[in-house]
């Protein structure tokens, strides 16, 4: 049975996990030091020229060694554009995960610990929220923001709006898991013992229950990081996310999509490849963590 329980990666050697870790580490370094590493600053108009536009990747006919992954329609080096895009994608992903996790863990703990009316209220709100897929909610919020704040404001505040729009129903997953684990822990004798000892509720929640539910939170957070990055990319691809002036990977793919039929496939495919590699690496690590720390947690 122990064998059967192991999931997906059981047969793949842990090498795949190591590679994924490595990819993530490299990406993290690239993201942090992007301004120093990138061959040019895509936001600085003087650093690129229309002379270089639409050059294919260096490994293809007509490629130019200066532009490893080619250039876009404005002559910008794709490597630089993608590095800055990656930076924005990762930042928004992490921001959304942190915000959603903080909110969800807090509400889940309180709902699971106290039960009763508090629990019912929180969970009914959660039920209604998850009736609507994240993308849909995020799109709605984006649309409302446009109507309410005006396009300029939306462009300035795009990252914040995105983080909010993505976490607005992602917290539910944390809350549900934490609530379920909390309810299990509350019925465990060590929590009952803490109650009999006379410890106050807040202390029991933070000191006794939280450490015991944290491993599932970490696992969900990793898996959700992949989801959050994908959601951001999708929103940007649909034109409801980051503007072309501050493009994330999704925005870059949206731009590249226009050139698909003119044979300039690399403008879309290169950022897409980076996006898929990033998400895949996060997923591999997330899957591994789930198997390692919480095999009962359902794959979602």
């Amino acid at each position, binding site marked *: *049975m122990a*064998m059967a329980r192991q999931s997906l990666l059981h047969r793949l050697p842990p090498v795949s996990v190591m590679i994924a870790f490595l990819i993530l580490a490299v990406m993290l370094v690239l993201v942090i030091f992007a301004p120093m590493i990138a061959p040019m600053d895509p936001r600085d108009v003087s650093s690129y020229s229309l002379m270089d536009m639409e050059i294919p990747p260096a490994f293809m006919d007509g490629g130019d060694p200066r532009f490893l992954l080619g250039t876009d329609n404005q002559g910008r080096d794709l490597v630089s554009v993608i590095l800055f895009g990656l930076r924005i994608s990762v930042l928004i992903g992490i921001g959304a995960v942190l915000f959603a996790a903080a909110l969800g863990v807090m509400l889940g703990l309180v709902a699971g610990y106290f039960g009763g*009316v508090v629990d*019912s*209220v929180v969970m*009914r709100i959660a039920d209604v929220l998850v009736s609507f897929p994240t993308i849909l909610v995020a799109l709605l919020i984006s649309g409302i923001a446009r109507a309410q704040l005006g396009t300029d404001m939306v462009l300035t505040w795009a990252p914040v709006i995105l983080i909010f729009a993505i976490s607005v129903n992602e917290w539910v997953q944390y809350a549900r898991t934490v609530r379920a684990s909390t309810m299990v822990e509350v019925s*465990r*004798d*060590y929590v*009952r*013992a*803490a*109650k*009999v*000892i*006379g*410890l106050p509720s807040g202390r029991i929640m933070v000191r*006794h229950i939280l*450490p*015991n539910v944290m491993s599932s939170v970490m696992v969900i957070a990793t898996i959700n990081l992949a989801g959050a990055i994908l959601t951001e990319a999708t929103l940007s691809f649909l034109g409801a996310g980051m503007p072309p002036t501050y493009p994330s990977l999704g925005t870059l793919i949206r731009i590249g999509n226009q050139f698909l039929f003119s044979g300039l496939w690399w403008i879309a495919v290169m950022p897409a490849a980076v996006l898929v590699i990033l998400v895949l690496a996060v997923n591999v690590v997330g899957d591994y963590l789930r198997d390692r720390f919480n095999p009962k947690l359902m794959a979602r």
Partner: protein
Amino acid sequence: MTKTKPPVLDIRNLRVEYPLATGDVLVAVKDIDLVIQPGEIHALVGESGAGKTTVGNALMGLLQAPGKIVSGSIDIAGKPIDLRTGRTEGIVPGRDVGAIFQDPMTSLNPLFTVQDQLCEGMLTHLKISAREARARALDLMKAVGIPEPERRLGSYPHQLSGGQRQRVVIATALACDPQLIVADEPTTALDVSVQAQILKLIRDLADQRGVGVLLVTHNMGVVAEIADRVTIMQNGAVVESGPAREVLTAPKAPYARTLIAAVPPIDTRLERLPVPSEETKVTLEARDAVRRNNKKGNAERSDEVVLDVRNLCVEYGKGSLIPGRKTSVFKAVKSVSFNVKRGEIFGLVGESGCGKTTVANTIAGLVTQSSGDIDFQGNSLGGHRARSVRQSLQMVFQDPYSALNPRLRINNAIAEPILFYKLASNGAEARQDAKTLLEAVGLPGDAGLRFAHAFSGGQRQRIAIARALGPRPSMLICDEPTSALDVSVQAQLLNLLKDLRDLAGLSMLFISHDLAVIRQMCDRIAVMKSGEIVELADTETLFTAPKHDYTRELLRLAPSLERILERERASA
């Protein structure tokens, strides 16, 4: 049951190994022999990890990978099993061997009717028509004594009670007329009264149908109740084997002797259970320290009432926020009154669901009563409690595996309440107190540096007791503190609790379903049934001259070692 028939089970030199990830090999079963004659019930007993369940699984072909039979032979009804594959795939489980598992709640598929599950085995193995199968199913239902068998055939498992489900499981095991039945802890999940019925059913089936039964159990009382022969296992090897009467009344092997001595007797009260004492110099010194600490306020035993419970009622199931979900009230405790005197151990006994744990939880403050008074040392206990009250009332729980926070070092877990009640001025002092408490309950002082998973069930329960003693309580509530433990560990723990009562001048509320344990521990006892106390008396009075019918019924049905002698008298 003629002697000319071959034995239904003949195991020779069976060895089962589990290769470990580290490259080592765990020998789960070490070269055992075991023979069962037709109509014979052979009990395989031992404490957890003894390998008894592995034997059962091996001969049903249910060994879990990577476990495998490495040598030996198994003959069922004279037919040898092909072991070349390393698995017992030679026999047809279900046709030649029937199985009964521990938990009737999970042994049946919830999505299929009783009839479906009874018939599928027959249709597979016996090549009979669906009509014949149904007719046989009906016979089986009658044979295992299920009321309204016709109607029950169409029922789903969830519509049956636990006892009825176990009867269905037994009927399923009998469906193809096997010569051998493997019953793995068949009554462990059941209440005493249901247990007695199921045991009688198994005994009758062996006598009337000549089925051989391999009864895997940890409960000596069950063995005494129905077994013809007993094999005692320890660490995968057979320690002693023979007729039940001989093994139970005059065990020869040292381990067998300790094991049987550790079983609490129901007919007499012992000062201490005869298990090796663990009192060392360290323990005694630590206990002295504990005694000095607890001096204030904890006088010797007296008639002073410490806890007075009057007309306690507890109801569960209040309305919910969702409109439409009706308020359904379940009265768990109905007007219960009793008191506990200083230094006394007061017992609450009853079957599962009788409300005894709810009473304990209410007194401990985990549940709030719907009406009635609890008076504890002059304080009335309701929803809100003074700090001093909380400090004086501590509790030990049933499940040692969930009683300790897995993320907390043991000495921090014990030090936490000590610090919280400001019984130590700083963390270092509190951890020193924790060390003393650990030594007092018989653990090494440096045990505190480790986490809960490093300890066995019995050790964890000791840690839980040490933690409960930390706030220097005057009363300890023990909710089935030993029911999850092996019998020898239970004996040591019961002795420890008695010592601590004397040492710290504690009063105790002791809850158990086990009458023998209750008899060993308690001064006075209340018997509970369906949320009410039906009888309350001194221990000796209750056991020697029970007044209420229910008490007598419980005493009559409780399995115990003495049964073997009774059975002999009856058959003589």
